[in-house]
């Protein structure tokens, strides 16, 4: 039994069965054996008699991203205690903070010399921020892909645990890390470039050897010279809408933004406004103060003091939760055109 792989599994509060967004602030908890989808992980490991889940760490999505250092110390203590040969995190699908948490846990494991694997949507925040350090199998957005994701994570994870080095991402089926390695080719660069060019002109398929970077670089706009002459617009991705949600804004994967008048308005009350965001607990916004995602009272105060010249008559609002990059780009471009036409000099964008 000495060649049995000891796996430590990482889950968020939701998959760990603790609760929903209201439990997203819980610190790490350690359990012996598998929990929730860990049972599927256990079954997958056992079907190949490869090993078992020795422990599961469950942590709140907010806790791990907001208290990274403390959270990782506690995860580290669990790693020291259970001495796993492999850490499996998630899969996180398109859940951004969960994906970021999985990435942090994998990196904490790697720092201790323990191989780690995770699974998430290729556009997940975890990939965006830590791509270079992550072995992640790509998943869809929905948790219905759990079984397929788990099987692929186990397949690659066991190879990592055995000390194998994985081949290129495209061949092995993990999310490209953006690492280029020196390899032996039977053809010279000129020959490969020629074949690629011929494939391209004849409309055949080919794969570039240099993958384009995932994110477009935009030159920053010039700063505001005199803020006391500036008109400022407020934008939020906090899902803020008039009470009753007249435009039926959604709580996640929003495709639209809406504009709401704040003309003559000094503050936002919970009687008239609400957040429909479903990616975090909106209890503070909806019972105490919606301005936590749209600082209108403060902006009005500095407007009265003459710090800024004026505030755009409307605020623009969307729900930033699992929004695909292409959608975010389109919304940003439309918002930009509108604000440009309105003579706006600067934007405060609250991103939740």
């Amino acid at each position, binding site marked *: 039994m000495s060649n049995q792989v000891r796996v430590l599994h990482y889950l968020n509060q939701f998959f760990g069965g603790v609760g929903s967004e209201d439990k*997203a602030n819980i610190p790490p908890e350690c359990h012996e054996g598998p929990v929730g989808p860990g049972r599927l992980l256990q079954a997958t490991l056992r079907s190949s008699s490869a090993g078992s889940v020795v422990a599961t760490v469950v942590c709140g999505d*907010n806790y791990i991203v*907001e*208290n990274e250092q403390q959270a990782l110390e506690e995860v580290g203590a669990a790693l020291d205690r259970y001495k796993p040969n492999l850490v499996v995190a998630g899969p996180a699908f398109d859940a*951004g*903070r969960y994906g*970021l948490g999985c990435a942090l846990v994998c990196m904490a494991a790697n720092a201790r010399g323990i191989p780690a694997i995770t699974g998430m949507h290729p556009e997940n925040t975890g990939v*965006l*921020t830590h791509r270079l350090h992550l072995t992640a199998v790509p998943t869809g957005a929905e948790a219905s892909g759990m079984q397929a994701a788990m099987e692929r994570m186990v397949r690659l994870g066991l190879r990592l645990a055995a000390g194998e080095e994985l081949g290129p991402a495209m061949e092995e089926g993990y999310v490209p890390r953006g690492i280029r390695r020196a390899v032996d080719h039977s053809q010279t660069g000129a020959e490969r470039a020629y074949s690629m060019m011929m494939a391209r002109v004849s409309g055949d398929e080919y794969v570039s050897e240099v993958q384009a970077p995932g*994110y*477009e*670089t*935009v030159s*920053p*706009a*010039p*700063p*505001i*010279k005199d*803020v006391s002459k*500036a008109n400022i617009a407020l*934008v939020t*991705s*906090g899902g803020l809408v008039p009470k009753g949600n007249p435009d039926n804004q959604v709580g996640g994967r929003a495709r639209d933004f809406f504009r709401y008048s704040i003309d003559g308005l000094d503050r936002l009350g919970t009687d008239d406004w609400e957040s429909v965001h479903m990616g*975090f607990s*909106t209890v*503070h*916004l909806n019972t*105490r*103060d919606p*301005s*936590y*995602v749209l*600082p209108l*009272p*403060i*902006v009005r*105060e*500095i407007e009265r003091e003459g*710090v800024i010249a004026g505030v755009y008559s409307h605020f623009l609002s*969307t729900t*930033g939760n699992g929004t695909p990059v292409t959608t975010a*780009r*389109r*919304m*940003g*471009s439309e*918002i*930009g*055109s509108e*604000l*440009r036409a309105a003579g706006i*000099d*600067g*934007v*405060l*964008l*609250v*991103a*939740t």
Partner: protein
Amino acid sequence: MAKEIEKTGIPVAVLTALPIIPLSVGAARVVRGVRVEHVCGDPRLTPEVDRKLGRRIVETALEALQTEVDGPTRFVPPDEPLMEELGLGV
């Protein structure tokens, strides 16, 4: 979203509890807020201190809008001693 707005020539200050996200996708001016559930303030504070904290965050955002940057830049409101004192440090 912020990048597309910046493309039109208008500077954007992104206020967020998780600066690493906009910074890694290339947003130019990123201001650290409090927490995901309450970016521009903190309901655990008294309304007066909460307001003060919110004001510092917005002032930092205005400062960011007036700052020349050549790439993703993080701006931190000068409230860290206050937040740490209250046990709210990130």
